[in-house]
Every structure is written in structure tokens, then in C-alpha cells.
């Protein structure tokens, strides 16, 4: 066990965990931030996605030891108070969620994509979102919501 200082949603947090602990479990078990979800633990489903230095990253694959000194944004850090991020707004506009479990990961990847590429083509949207599994099959709406968000940005 060692102490790690993490910058999460612009706050410095200290946790005392094993160095190989994935950021996903640090967020959920130690910081009580439940927005990043556990779906597979092997980087296949995208449910655990957070932004690390602005880039969509699978937090189940990122050991805490490699996350120190980097800027972590979770879905809890997207909105500014009552003001939702345009991607969150677009998700509500299209009422994308069914069970909703995959959606926070999908939203974080979309935010990461649009921050680098505000006007993605269909192919670019697909390439970015293809790492996610939505078991409920909301892909048609996710595609629309990403487009709507890109218009809002």
C-alpha cells in the first residue's frame, strides 16, 4: 500500500492503495465516485471511461501509480453546477438511455472526441465510439446525440 495523490475533477485527493489498483476502483471504492462503471475490467466495454488529460481512457486498465500528476475528469466533473455539458444535454434531448449503465462511459468518450474534433464525420464518430458496448442497443441514438452535441459546441 502506498499513498497516491490524484487530481480528480480539479481536486487533489489522497488515497492509500496498492500501486496496481486500477483508477476505476480507486474512484468507486475510495473516492465514492460511482459515475465510472465496471463492465468488463479488461478494456473491452468502455463503461469505465474517464478523461485523463482530456483523452478518453479506460480507467479499469489504468493503475493508480500511472495516474499521479495527471488530470482526471469523471462524469461527475462534467457539469458546472446546474449547467450540463453539451454532450449531457444532447443525451437528454435524444433520451438515449435505456438501462443507462453504459452511458456515462459513452458520454465521456464523446466529450473526449469532440474536444479534439468538434465536427467529426460519421466514420470518426463510429471509430471513437466503437470501443463501447451498449447491451441495450442504443447505438442509433448515441450517434444522433454525438452529432447534436457537435452542433451545440
Amino acid at each position, binding site marked *: 500500500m502506498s499513498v497516491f495523490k490524484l487530481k480528480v475533477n480539479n481536486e487533489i485527493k489522497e488515497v492509500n492503495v496498492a500501486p496496481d489498483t486500477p483508477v476505476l476502483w480507486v474512484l468507486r471504492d475510495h473516492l465514492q465516485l460511482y459515475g465510472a462503471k465496471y463492465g468488463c475490467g479488461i478494456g473491452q466495454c468502455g463503461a469505465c471511461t474517464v478523461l485523463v488529460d482530456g483523452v478518453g481512457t479506460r480507467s479499469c486498465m489504468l493503475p493508480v501509480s500511472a495516474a499521479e500528476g495527471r488530470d482526471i475528469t469523471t*462524469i461527475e466533473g462534467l457539469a458546472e453546477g446546474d449547467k450540463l455539458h453539451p454532450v449531457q444535454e444532447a*443525451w437528454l434531448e435524444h433520451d438515449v438511455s*435505456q*438501462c443507462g449503465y453504459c452511458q456515462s462511459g459513452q458520454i465521456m468518450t464523446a466529450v473526449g472526441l469532440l474536444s479534439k474534433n468538434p465536427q467529426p464525420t460519421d466514420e470518426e464518430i463510429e471509430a471513437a465510439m*466503437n470501443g463501447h458496448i451498449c447491451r441495450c442497443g442504443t447505438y442509433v441514438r448515441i450517434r444522433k446525440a454525438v452529432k447534436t452535441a457537435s452542433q451545440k459546441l
Partner: protein
Amino acid sequence: MEDIIKTNYNRRSFLKVSAAAGGGLMLGFNWLAGCVPAAKEKTSVAIPDEWYDINAFLKIGNNGVVTIFSPNPEIGQNVKTAMPMIVAEELDVDWSQVVVEQAPLDAAKYRRQVAGGSQSIRQGWQSLRMAGATARRMLMEAAAQKWQVPVEELTTQAGSVIHETSGRQAGYGELADLAATLEVPAEVALKDPKDFSIIGHSTKNVDGPKIVRGEPLYGLDYYEEGMLTAMIIHPPAFGIRPGKVDDSAARNMPGIKDIFVINSKPASAPDQWQKTFAFPEMVAIVGDSTWQVMQAKRAVRVEWERVSPGISTSDYRNDLTALLEVEPAKPARLDGNPEQAFARAAKVVESSYSAPYLAHNTLEPMNFFARVTPDKAELIGPVQTPERLWKTTAEVLDMPLEKVSVQMTRQGGGFGRRLYGHFGVEAAVIAQRTGKPIKLIYSREDDMTYGTYRPAYKVKYRAALDANNRLIGFHVRGAGTHGSPVFANRFPAGAVDNYLAENHNLDSNISTGAWRAPRSNFIAGAEQAFLDEVAEAAGQDPVAFRLTLFERAINNPVGSDNDYDAQRYAGVIRLVAEKAGWGKETPGVYRGFAAYYCHNSYVAEIVDVVMKNAQPQVQKVWCAIDCGIVVNPDAARNQVEGGIVDGIGHAMFSAMTFIEGEPLQKNFDTYRMIRMKEAPREIEVFFVDNGIDPTGLGEPALPPVQGALANALYRATGRRYYHQPFMMPNSELGMALS
């Protein structure tokens, strides 16, 4: 015109309801308040000072805010929005004044708190409407008393009672205290569906804002101070049990509190769960945090003992094939003389279809929270059958029912997997033994390899055509690893003079259960692909061919116990054909058609496939569905879209396979799920507007799309797709997939 309907509620049942549900207690059900800092709990309506319980489904605040309790488990089918919409409609309240809460399990207050069989809305329809209508009536009677006017002179509008003649008006909040003391009316007037202002109007998911903010809603997110994490090691294969357990290395790892073997199978497992306690004995590991427990799990050494045969995929595939050559002792249905019909046929078409075991793979793996003390057991988590979990837990813990409670969280998918709440029982057993509150978490691997799988199926069809290409004989023989997939009385039964349906069952120790649209999820695709072949052999258009059969079923049906309404069936077929412009050819677009009836609803679908880099890609799906009144149209479209994507994905890519009882697919690297690139670009949904009471919606869109897809693939590639998953070489299915 108003329908007068008997309420089925009597004074006593409501009195009981009110007594059991004091305002304070009701508020206490919002368990999330315990783990979400108060500042984050933002509601768009003001919290009233005082709540008045009107009935089990709703309470009204003194400021007019209405809390509606959604009785059924929310697994993504959106009943948590739709069920309260129905109550609000009859109550006549503005939706913006409604707060929705998940009702706790209470078998005395609510009927059928189950998510399964696409029945929540269908079976809840009358009681939800009555709950709203009786409450409205009680508010009107309260106003009549206050104002000393006849109740017949009163009307309601958006949360107010109005006396037009005197110009008086009072909000529900002002009347609720008096209304809560009144008799529940024995009869109540329901609205004419023409006057609906909430039902039939798209309303956003009530949990949507919390979902996009990543708030803790799901079982896996449940947290309370002092809670420990538990995980299990279940046998890695069907047919084995744990023998000697060596936990010496794991025990001393950081954060590990205890390791022990549990047996959570009740002596009287309900029938439905009998086979799903596939692994009654397993190793439990309890510790401080998930990662620590995951590490310790790997360090436990278990010697496994064989108790029944280890079955491989090649075994049951061969057995199913062999069974289809055997004539069963008695048919499931026999009309006319099929043998003669086949003997005099000008043409006989014969084909076999098969599909593998499938895992449910809800994206939120199985989990449950439990706290068990000598005088109470509290369970919180995602389950589709909370009542059954409640009773089974009481039995296994040997506690009286009153001391056991189950509360439902939002659920990260169900698809049938959470009908089998053994994981809740396991959590309770672990908590009892540990003496501390625990949250049991299945890893993805635990989840995928602990099946209540969709069974493996195989079916053989034969059709006899006469010299005029009329269908004169039809024979279906089906077999599955948990019963036959054939529904003997569904179409084309009733439309063919000589008809024979036969069933076989293949026993297996690989556990199976309900998986979204059980049996239909295979047989619809097979049947609809076969009918496409038959239409082709008859030289007829596939849509026209089916409509001819339905004409027969409408005008002169064969037999009397046909499951379906041929008019409504033909209705969706005509609708989708018209909307999609069936018959007009677009170069490079290959079309397939299918229709099916299940869960009391009728669906017809057209799939458009294009070839992209020599790979088939579903471009668009057209769907017409007759499911009666649609409560929440946009959310209903979402369900249909999901069913279509789900059906296409599993038919194309997914399979569970086994070697000596061991599931070879353990996570999403080897179990292939459909992703965005493979999903249809566009889905268009058309609802039949017929004013009939609502029927199933969560399941019926899935089954036929597999047939429409197979038929479109045939036109795109020139070959028929008989064996799922279509995109996996059939030969691979029986082999290890690395």
C-alpha cells in the same frame, strides 16, 4: 364516453395501505439519500412540508407535488417513467408536478412486481389507471365536502379541482389532507383514451438527468459506511463442485477479512430457480475493497470434484441433430394429414436451423447488498423478481418473512438474467456469516460463466407445395437443451390444412433460463427464414406469399386454438410494406422481410443490407408494431430500436461454447457483442394506432429481425444463413475459440 370500472379495491385494502405507509416511512425509501451528499440532490419541484398518502401508488404534498411510486423493477424497459405516467393521466395532474420513486417490494400492496414477459404495462394497466382515478375522485369528494356542492358539478384540470358554476378552484395539495381520510370509491370513472394528455405523449426518462450526471443509481453503486466487498469463486465448469479449498495464501493478503465456502441453495428451490442454482456451493471472499478481493480470489486454490458429466458443444450439437431424426411419441399439434400432403406434393422444401447458447451479459454484472443481523435481513439491489428473492432468502436464512426486506435499485439491464435472484440469496448468506453488511459483486467472468443461458436450439422444417405452388403441408420438429423452441399454435398453424408440430427436449447440466423473448428469440428467425425459402420455391413475393396465408387464416382458419389474430398480423405486414416501399428496388440495397407475434404484440420488419468492403452491413430497419395503446412513444421507439439491435447482434456475432462443461467465453474479448459500427444506421418504427389496451413491447421487436436479416443476407450474398451466429463459420462453433 367514460368507462365505469369496478375498482377491485375495497375500503379495507386501502386502509391497510395507508396504515402501512406513513409519510415518514415512504420518504425513507429513498435510500440513495444516504449516499449522495444533500447538495447534489436537486429536484425541480419544491419539497412539501406535509405528505398525504392517498393509496399505495401515490401521495400528495400540501403544495400539490405528487409522488408516484413505480411498482415494478426498472431494467431499462423504462417502466419507471411509463407506469407513473398512467397513474398521473387518470389523476389529472401536470407531469411537471410529479416526482417518481421506485416502490419497495410489498406483495400485499402491489400485484406482480416482476420485470418479465413484457407484461409490466399490460398487467399493470387497469390497476395503475384505477389508482389515479380513485385518487382523483377522492380529491373531488373532498372539494365537494368543503364547498358543500354536489361532486357531479366538479371537474379537474392539471392538479386542481374546479367548480365552474361558482368559479371556485383548489389545488390537490389543499385538498389532500381531507381526501386522505375519505372512503375509497367502489366504482370509478376512467378517462376515454381520446382525452389522454400524458399517455401517448413522449415523456423523458425520469432518471435521465441522474444517468447523464453519473449519479449512483445502480446496485453496484450502493454504498454505506462500514460495508465490505464480497466476491465468489464458482466452479469454472458445469458438472463440478468445490472440494478441498486452500486459502492460506489469500487469507493474509491486504484487506482480506474472511474466506469460506457457502451453500445458498434452498431446500425447496422454486421451480423456476431449480436449475439456476447451478453452483449451490461456492467459495466466498470478503474484504475491504474490490481490487483487494479480486487479487485474493486469484490466490485461492480449489480442488474441483466432478459430480455430473462435462458437456462439450460438439456433444449437444450432435445430440440435437440426432434428435431431429426421431419421431416423438406424440405431436404437439396435428391438423389434416401431413403425411399424405407431402406424398402428393409437387415440391418439398426442407431446411434446418440452429442457434447456440447465449449469455445475458447485462452490462451491470450481478450484484447485491445485504445486511443480516439476528433480527433483520435487508437486501438492496437489482433483481427482476424481488418477491421470489424475498421468500427464498427468508427460507435460506431461516428467518420469518416479516424480518426480511428487499429493495430494488435501478438495474443495468435484465434481459431475463435477473429473474433468477440466486445472487441475492448468496449475498444474504455471506452477510449472515460475516456479521457485517456486504456488497456481493460478480466479476464479468463470474457473470458470463454462471449461466442461465438461452438454450441451444435446432429445428427442422418441411413444406409441401402443390403443382399450383400452394402450401398444402407444413411440418416443424424442434429440439432444445431446455425444451423445444416450437410454439405449436402460432402461425403458420391455422393457415395450412395439413400441419404437424413436434417437440423434443435434450437434458443438460448447463443451466438455462429465460432470455429476452424466450424461444421466440430463436424460432421466429428460423421460421421466417424458412418461409422466405418456401416463397422462393413457390415463385412468389415473400410478403404476398404470407398475406395469402393470412387471408386463409382470416377467412377459413384451420383448427380453433390458433394463438394469434390474423387481421392484426396482416395489418402490421401491410403497414411495414407500405412504409418501406416494399417491391421497389434500390441498386445495392438488399431487402429481407419477416413478421412475428409474441408477448401479445404483432411485429413486421424489413431489413436493408448493403455490402461494404465485401462485408454485409445493415443500413436500415423498418418496423411496424401493433402493441395497442403506446404509453410513451419515444421511449417505446427506443425499446423497439434496442430489440432490433439486440436481435441483429446476437444473430450475427454471439455464442457461448463449452468444452467439458467449461464455458469458453468468459469476457467480451471472446464473447462478441454488437458494436456501433455493426448496428443499423437507421431504424424507423411505426405503431399501429388502434386504441386497444397495451400489450408487450420490450421483447417482440427482437425475434423477427433475425429472420428479416437472414433473408436480406441471402439477397446480398446469394447464400442462405441457417446457423447462428451468421458471421462465425459453423465449424468453429464446436471448437475451442482462443
